[in-house]
């Protein structure tokens, strides 16, 4: 065989190898921290400026079977007993891409103090949950969580922060939902493709680098429940102008937004302060009929 034919044959073999996809960049989407001991230890929460103020009697540790037979861990927090109305709503909280439940416990407490029941869960590979994270695994975990919450109530609000927005949007768009439902997205990326373009500037589809089917823009148009979006205008990671408007423009009515001056990726509730509580409660009250006890 002539040398130049060998070279072209070599290139052809390499091209065939492309179909095998030896590697993807999905791992860069997830930053789990495994947990050997218990959740909600005071010293672990302190890392996130959090002091647990929810009585143990209102916290229920939950384990659920997810895809691949992997067990995932979560907490169901019963609403503040003083709040007779709001505690009829359960917020299914889908957390961000880093660490585990401990980091997000402060967020759980914000919502619990408003009176809502909250269910938070760790994705596969996070905290004590078995397995390893992937796009499919996260969606399966979200579906398992939804099945659990539906066993307790049919008044469910999906809340997704950052990475969790993909799961919350998936549940609202692709999974049958109960009649009373709303979706809250905080600091949500538009899609993996948008993140890729943000990084590399070149117009390439997200599935060039990642297998995870993470596309909030594609799914948001399928959602017919009320939507509430919050995004920090100073977000230096999921930059507002390169993400939020794309989701917002693709969403149907009814939809509400709160673009927060001075807030970065992970401090929207803190920057808003009391306005955060008011905005969430108003949105839920305006759109979900809560039967009197």
């Amino acid at each position, binding site marked *: 065989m002539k*040398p*130049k034919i060998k*070279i072209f044959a070599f*290139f052809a073999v*390499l*091209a065939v*190898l*492309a*179909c*095998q*996809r*030896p*590697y*993807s*960049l999905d791992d*860069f*989407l997830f930053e789990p921290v495994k947990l050997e001991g218990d959740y909600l230890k005071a010293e672990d929460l302190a890392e996130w400026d959090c002091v647990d103020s929810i009585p143990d009697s209102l916290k229920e540790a939950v384990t659920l079977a997810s895809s691949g037979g992997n067990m995932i861990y979560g907490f169901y927090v019963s609403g503040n007993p003083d709040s007779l109305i709001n505690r009829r709503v359960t917020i299914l909280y889908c957390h961000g891409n880093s660490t585990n439940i401990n980091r997000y416990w402060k967020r759980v407490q914000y919502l619990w103090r408003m009176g809502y029941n909250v269910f938070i869960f760790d994705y596969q590979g996070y905290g004590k949950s078995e397995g390893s994270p992937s796009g499919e695994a996260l969606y399966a975990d979200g579906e398992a969580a939804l099945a659990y919450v539906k066993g307790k109530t049919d008044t469910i609000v999906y809340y997704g922060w950052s990475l969790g927005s993909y799961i919350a949007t998936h549940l609202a768009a692709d999974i049958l939902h109960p009649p009373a439902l709303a979706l809250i997205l905080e600091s949500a990326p538009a899609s*993996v493709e948008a*993140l*890729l*373009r*943000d*990084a*590399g*500037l*070149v*117009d*390439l*589809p997200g*599935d*060039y*680098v*990642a297998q995870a089917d993470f596309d909030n823009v594609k799914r948001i148009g399928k959602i017919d429940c009320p939507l509430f979006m919050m995004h920090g205008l100073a*977000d*230096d*990671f*999921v*930059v507002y102008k390169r993400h939020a408007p794309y989701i917002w423009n693709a969403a149907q009515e009814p939809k509400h937004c709160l673009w927060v001056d001075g807030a970065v990726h992970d401090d929207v509730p803190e920057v808003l302060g009391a306005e955060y509580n008011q905005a969430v409660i108003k949105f839920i009250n305006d759109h979900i009929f809560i039967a009197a006890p």
Partner: protein
Amino acid sequence: MIIIFLGSGCGTIASVRPIGKGNSSLSLSSAGPVAPVFGIDMPIPYAVLRYRHGLNDNTDFHCGLHATMLYLGNIGIDVGLTKHLFRQSGWRPALAFEASIYAFYHLNEVSSIRAFPEAAVFARYDLLGDRHAIYFGSHVLAQYTNPYIIIAPFLGFDFNIGHFGLNLEGKWYAPTEDTKYRVVDYKIKPFNQGAVGFAWGVSYQF
């Protein structure tokens, strides 16, 4: 978070000197902006295997296979021509123009096909006879979405020993783009514009 190359001139080095009619070369190069890769700040490794052939003494054909894209399960190729316009004369450097088409395809999804025209202009000064050279120029890549034009000026050195060549380049990727806040934490971004990176390439001529 996500790591991928940035913009124009991805992975390639300039075909800095004519290869000569009927001659061929094979090169491996890698280039990318400096960013954390597995916890280490280094040029994002975007590698390209490239074959060149001299059509005549001043015109080379090239085609490349983008190895990093292959590793991610995509096919990435580039094909093009380099025209060496004139040779060095006194202080006037040798000048060359390169035109390429980059094409990418993901598995079996026709909708994933992307093609980008790219051009490069570069000037070369020979050093120590004509075995080594210093060169500079810029890549320009065009696409249908914003940013429509991505440039990447570069400065490089070309060393040759026998049939082997070594190129080292510094590149400023997308200096017209604000990169203050990006998903990837580019480590060298003068004035928060674009990202600086480095390229190396080794070649064998036959």
